């Protein structure tokens, strides 16, 4: 041992085991129960949709970074998360080419044009979905369970005032997007992320509570509203996207409450039967402002 070889760096000299790839791949693992549930409820077609979404995201990230001469980051898992999340919000009848294209838009427009991971103001998967809703409105609202076309519980409620059985809502035996139908599977994966410390609970808690309270106040069935549609997958996995959500604890509550209010406003009085997508995107846009006004009081500071 020659002391000339000693490594000199600034403190601290130990780091936690966490890393960006670890966090991203953990999110993938957390989404597996929802993925399996989608295969169970919507047959093997769910597998090809998910693969198409992931392929669109990963391949476009690779090509974008290759063309720009940047470091290729497809192994960090973040593009896989985007593609997987997007696919899980799509109807089971969606054509594979449209899914692939959605994945491409999510990564290129939602993430890479802003500078890649860490720089996107909006959740990339939601950008992909927003694009598809605008471009293929018919394809995006064709729901089917066991090959029989059906409306989603939210649409049934909105147009005909028909409520769906709560237990079926909770386990996911209903019409809807691939991964959003089973609240049970989504919560299972979320509890894994909570255990790992890779997700914050303030946003989903405040968002879901807000929807519950508001729908209750306006005379709706609050239990139905929190389990129906994309609220669970949106609140648990998209609103909590680290890059596009607030960095302060108070900010996360505000973000969640704001998103919850927008969801209810759209569901009860808006043109769409579902409002999670736009609720989160709108709150994403407010994040810099929220961070700005929710700086925590530093220890010993008199504000």
């Amino acid at each position, binding site marked *: 041992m020659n002391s000339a070889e000693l490594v000199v760096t600034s403190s601290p000299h130990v780091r936690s085991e966490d890393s960006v790839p670890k966090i991203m791949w953990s999110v993938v693992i957390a989404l597996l129960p929802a993925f399996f549930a989608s295969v169970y409820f919507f047959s093997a077609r769910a597998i090809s949709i998910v693969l198409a979404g992931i392929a669109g995201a990963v391949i476009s990230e690779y090509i974008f970074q290759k063309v720009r001469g940047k470091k290729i980051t497809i192994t960090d898992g973040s593009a896989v998360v985007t593609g997987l999340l997007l696919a899980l919000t799509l109807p089971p009848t969606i054509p594979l080419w449209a899914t692939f294209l959605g994945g491409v838009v999510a990564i290129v427009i939602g993430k890479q044009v802003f500078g890649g*991971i860490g720089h996107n103001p909006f959740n990339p998967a939601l950008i992909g979905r927003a694009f598809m809703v605008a471009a293929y409105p018919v394809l995006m609202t064709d729901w089917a369970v066991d090959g029989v076309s059906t409306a989603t519980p939210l649409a049934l409620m909105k147009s005909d005032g028909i409520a769906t059985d709560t237990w079926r809502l909770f386990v996911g035996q209903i019409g809807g997007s691939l991964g959003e139908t089973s609240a049970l599977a989504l919560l299972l994966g979320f509890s894994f992320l909570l255990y790992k410390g890779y997700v914050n609970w303030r946003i989903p808690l405040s968002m879901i509570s807000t929807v519950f309270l508001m729908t209750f106040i306006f005379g709706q069935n609050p239990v139905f509203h929190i389990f129906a549609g994309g609220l669970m997958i949106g609140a648990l996995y998209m609103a909590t996207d680290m890059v596009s959500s607030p960095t302060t604890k108070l900010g996360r509550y505000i973000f969640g409450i704001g998103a919850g209010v927008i969801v209810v406003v759209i569901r009860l009085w808006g043109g769409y039967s579902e409002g999670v997508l736009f609720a989160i995107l709108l709150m994403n846009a407010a994040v810099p402002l929220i961070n700005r006004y929710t700086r925590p009081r530093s220890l010993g500071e008199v504000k």
Partner: protein
Amino acid sequence: MKALTFKQGIHPSYNKELTKDKPLKNAKRPEEVLIPIKQHIGAPLDLLVKKGDQVDLGQKIADSESFVCAPIHASVSGKVKEIRKVTDPGGNTVDAVVIEASAEEDEKLVSNLEKHQNLDNLSPDDIRKIVREAGIVGLGGAMFPSHVKLAVPEDKNVEYVILNGAECEPYLTVDHRVMVERPNAIVFGLKALMKAVNAEKGLIGIEDNKMEAVESMQDAVADETNIEVKLVETKYPQGGEKMLIEALLEREVPVGGLPLDIEVVVNNTSTAAAVADAIREGKPLIERSISITGRGIESPCNLIFRIGTKLADLVEQAGGLKENAAKVIAGGPMMGAAQKNLDVPAVKGTSGLLVMLADEVEDFDPDPCINCAKCVDHCPMYLMPTTLIKYAKNNMVEKLEEYQILNCIECGSCSYVCPSKIPLVHYLRLGKSQAMAKRREEK
């Protein structure tokens, strides 16, 4: 007893088992010591010796008229070989007195300090004088002159003297050993400190991973009515002065202020033992304890060394470096300073020497920040490191001040938790220096 604590913070691997059961033993007397003549925060000192002088153990070799300073004493008897520049463990270039040790038989302690077996005949002023003359500084690592902390302005009152026995830095076990082996000296020192600031109550805060120390200290204070041992949770940085006060008293040190502002004085447990040694034995601060530890050292141990002993000498007495040792840190892994070489003297604030193996020394290649806010969620000072470093990188000093950069204690929790491995503390230091530079300009 319920363990108290502060909010946020982190739980790194503590690795105390390497040395926690190794009793303190005296290091071999070094043949040569390099004594930097500035081992405190404050004014520089004037040299009292010159090349060729014979000095005795305990003889004062540097001092100053300034209030905020701590004199330096010879840690061996011998001859002043030279005065030369050395690098101290903090990386600063400082003048040092190089003393060549004479034969050990000839060594005797000379000291201008009287010995007092109890505190009855000592006034608060006497105690402050002894602490100053003994050159005592904060032994937790900050090296702030202890007598300055004890000088309470007339308009201030001190309710509590807190002894910091948290020792939250991973690996380090010196305070632990001193609490286990010398509890009575610590209690005597605490009483002296309490008398010096006229405080009614004394508290000793110890993390709950050191139950042996807790029991030892509890036995030692069993007959004291106004001193209590308090259990604090094992969490980093529990030993930070502000965190310990928050945990024990739920009081906050004001930004830019001192514990004195909330009627508290905090000292390290080992500092209290040094105060006891100065009062009872007339012994100035010429030695201290150190944990020499880590997977990269052959035989981890706790030693009492003479101030100015070269790191190389200490490493040798712990069996030497292992072949694949890659990093030597003065202090602990969270706040310690990595050393370029081992010709550096261990000083009053050197509480540990940590040797890490090559496979423990990661080559961090930072990823972009993903806004996960783990740094915000764990900062014990409730700062926003991820936001602050953006301002620091762009030299936005007003924003840095608004976001309280100067409240950062550089504990390293943010860098520790960052999944992108961004060296946050490094940039926070940069930001602090920018804000300090602006303050100096304004003056």
